[in-house]
């Protein structure tokens, strides 16, 4: 079971490029028709250098370009089948647009046992910077591990 010793552990940084084709696939999947995400002129009129990404897309970029998307689970010896997503948070500091190259630096910031050890909540916080070194966002995910009953 994951314990407090995991707090502070960091994982391999991920570098991801915001590619227009992949972004279009995401927009199509969601039936997203907002022109600000699809049309460069509309985006520029809204003050962007290029079309921006939707609010949750940072989560996807990190997973898409990670060599091992579930590295933190493997590193902490957690079975993927026992994991649920508990909470998710994004704090946005600067725009992210098509063509940007982002670097994600994930680390464990808390481990909490719930329900007498039946569940463990793990918070992974990820700072995101762009190709100019601008801190564009902070992403925080809480995963819930359904622990095996002691036999």
């Amino acid at each position, binding site marked *: 079971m994951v314990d407090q010793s995991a707090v502070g552990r960091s994982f391999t940084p991920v570098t991801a490029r915001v590619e227009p084709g992949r972004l279009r696939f995401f927009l199509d999947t969601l039936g997203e028709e907002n022109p600000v995400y699809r049309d460069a002129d509309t985006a520029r009129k809204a003050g962007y250098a290029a079309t921006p990404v939707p*609010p949750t897309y940072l989560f996807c970029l990190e997973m898409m370009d990670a060599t091992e998307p*579930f590295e933190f689970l493997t590193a902490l010896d957690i079975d993927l089948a026992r994991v649920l997503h508990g909470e998710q948070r994004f704090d946005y500091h600067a725009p992210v647009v098509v063509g940007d190259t982002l670097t994600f630096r994930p680390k464990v910031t808390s481990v909490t046992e719930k329900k007498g050890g039946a569940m463990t909540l793990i918070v992974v916080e990820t700072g995101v910077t762009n190709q100019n070194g601008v801190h564009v966002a902070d992403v925080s995910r809480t995963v819930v591990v359904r622990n095996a009953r002691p036999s």
Partner: protein
Amino acid sequence: MTLFVGERIVHKTFPPITRHRLALYCGASGDHNPIHVDLDFAKQAGFPDVFSHGMLVMAYLGQALTDVVPPSRIRSFSTRFAAITQLGATLTCEGTVAELLEHNGEKRARIALTTKDQTGEVKLAGEAVVAL
């Protein structure tokens, strides 16, 4: 943007969640966790069927939000995944102005957000802080 507390500004319903949508989202999001697309894996893990990625539901909520608030005005966006979203769920996203505030001279609003299925069960509960 002029808002008042209690005003409902977000309201959007999405098509039912299908296996096809989950397969597309698996590829489009980079979240290849088989529990959302592979029935054998889901059953092995103790679930009766595959179920939606929480982040697909959050992406819908984000879409409903940026239909009415320009993405550049969103300062933060957070949710708690309250319940698993099953196949066939028809999701409705809603957002109500919960508070007007000011941060470093910027006028902002806190929008309380929910996503419910067709039975009214809350799947996501969260909030966004937006600049006015």
